[in-house]
């Protein structure tokens, strides 16, 4: 299913986004490398109307002059949801996008239904985790199975340019103390995902997050590094779809004889 590129006019400027599939709207917030159309996104678009906004300044788009913080970005995404999805929707955020999704939920809880935080940034204990020295080191931290990368992946230069946008928004991979304080007030049902081989954000990051988010579930994905969607797309898709469709019922093994398996 090919995603369609669209644009929407928001109060701070024009926002590019992709949309694919039909059904209940869900929002996907991309990682620091920009939008990568993975098998997980392809799979989600088979069951949902998947919306993927391009954060201003990423993937060759223009930054919005007035948006210069994570809180500002959260406001922009909240406005996008209201305008495009028409009401609260499920939100998935990956790494930088997970950090943004947490800010969005803290700032605009009325815009979010289920929340999925995939190896989110913003909660790394100081001094923990690896900081890549160059592009090759970054690649090794991201992927345990780089051979699974989609063949039409974007040029490395574009990913590097995307990452240069991070300071503009006050992004931190380490613990954002202000956000951390707000987590206990978030009452959204949340699924936290972490790759067992993620060395960029160690398990202590998601353990901290899990301990502060009252209605959260933490699941480790075996044999995945930071880019879970690339390393283990089938496992992640199965889990996320089950969570979005069944809420707490995702914990149940429905088997084939369940009264109401759907």
């Amino acid at each position: 299913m090919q995603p369609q590129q669209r644009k929407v006019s928001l109060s701070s400027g024009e926002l590019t986004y992709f949309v694919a599939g039909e059904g209940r709207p869900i929002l996907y917030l991309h990682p620091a490398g920009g939008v990568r159309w993975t098998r997980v996104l392809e799979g989600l678009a088979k069951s949902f109307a998947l919306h993927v906004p391009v954060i201003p300044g990423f993937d060759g788009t223009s930054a919005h002059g007035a948006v210069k913080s994570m809180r500002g970005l959260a406001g922009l995404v909240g406005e996008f949801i209201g305008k495009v999805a028409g009401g609260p929707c499920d939100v998935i955020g990956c790494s930088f996008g997970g950090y943004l999704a947490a800010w969005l939920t803290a700032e605009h809880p009325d815009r979010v239904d289920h929340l999925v935080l995939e190896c989110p940034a913003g909660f790394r204990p100081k001094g923990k985790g690896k900081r890549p020295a160059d592009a090759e080191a970054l690649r090794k931290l991201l992927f345990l199975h780089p051979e699974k990368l989609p063949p039409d992946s974007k040029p490395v230069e574009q990913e590097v340019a995307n990452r240069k946008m991070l300071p503009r928004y006050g992004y931190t991979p380490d613990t954002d103390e202000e956000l951390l304080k707000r987590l206990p007030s978030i009452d959204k049902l949340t699924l936290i995902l972490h790759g067992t081989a993620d060395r960029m954000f160690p398990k202590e990051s998601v353990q901290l997050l899990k301990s502060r988010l009252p209605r959260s579930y933490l699941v480790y994905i075996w044999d995945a590094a930071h880019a879970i969607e690339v390393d283990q797309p089938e496992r992640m898709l199965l889990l996320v779809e089950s969570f979005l469709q069944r809420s707490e019922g995702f914990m149940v093994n429905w088997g084939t004889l369940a009264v109401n398996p759907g």
Partner: protein
Amino acid sequence: MKFSFFHLMPYTHLELESHDWPFPNRYFDPEKASALYRTYVESMIHAEACGCDWVGCNAQHFSPYGMMANCNLIGGALVYPTKRVKIAMIGNLVPLNNPIRVAEEYAMLDCMSGGRLVAGLMRGIPHEYLAYNIPPGESWERQREAVQLILKCWTEPEPFGWEGKHFQYRQVSIWPKPMQKPHPPLVISASNADSAKFAAEMRATMGMVLLADLPSGKECIRIYKETAKANGWEPTPENVLVGMHTCIAETDEEARRHLEQGLKYFDQVLMGGLQASQRIVLQKTRYFENEESRDRWKSRLDKRRTLTLDEAIDRGTVLCGSPETVVAQIRRIHGELGHGVFNFTVKVGTLPDEVIRRGMELFRDRVHPHVRDL
């Protein structure tokens, strides 16, 4: 040097004849087994008073080779009558079982014993895969994944889920958790290069419960230490466990006579069915990741069958003799391998239990004082 009293708990009331696998259980007499269990558990408890630091046992299936389908049950029987010894489960066959159950039962044993558990996380020898209908070709994948999952069960501060290839659990939060922090010490089998590497990667004690020969033991220890270093840690001598058949008696002649008799039953009866099943597994599956490991395993089996007791003693793969002879044997093997845990497999076939009991008293009085400071 630490010493471990290790029991296989064989069934010893069979005629001297070999059987194919699976060994027909029409020969099993529960009355006799009941008496054997009591004797075996009592001899393990007695080992604490004889200077042993660990008492250990393992799991076996579908065979008189060992009557412990679940060694944790024996661990439970040892916990309260003992006070000091480590309860060494060497161990649960991780790829064949539910890893959550292994984590739970080990945590129970650790709490019940006041933090004395040594947790063996074993891959299992080939025939066990027939018994539990698990593809032998998946053994390494299952072992690697299950060990990580068990560690998560013990160390995660919050409930968690696991989405793996062989194991999936949406939410896990075991009660109890182990007493030892961050978790009980691990023993992982390390009788070939692949397993020695894995044990080092997991920061586990490497276990060679039945040493094949000194050169191959040395090589496994070298690989283990090298891998540990590459993984940022330095094993101590106590991270190397070396085991062998052991018989101590008043004289060399008496010890040899008893061990020869026990080995006859061990080789002809207890090993018979296992060897047949192992041949099937090794020929038809990818239990070993490479041909070198498979060939080494096969040659170990062949070597074991053809060695005389004298040859085995000379090669340093059996401890047998008077207390003075065994002191010299322990010193020689320790000099070669530099290990810190010696694992005595004491019940070799039909070796009489009263001989074992007396042997352990000789160990306490005339062996241990000379080797404990190695």
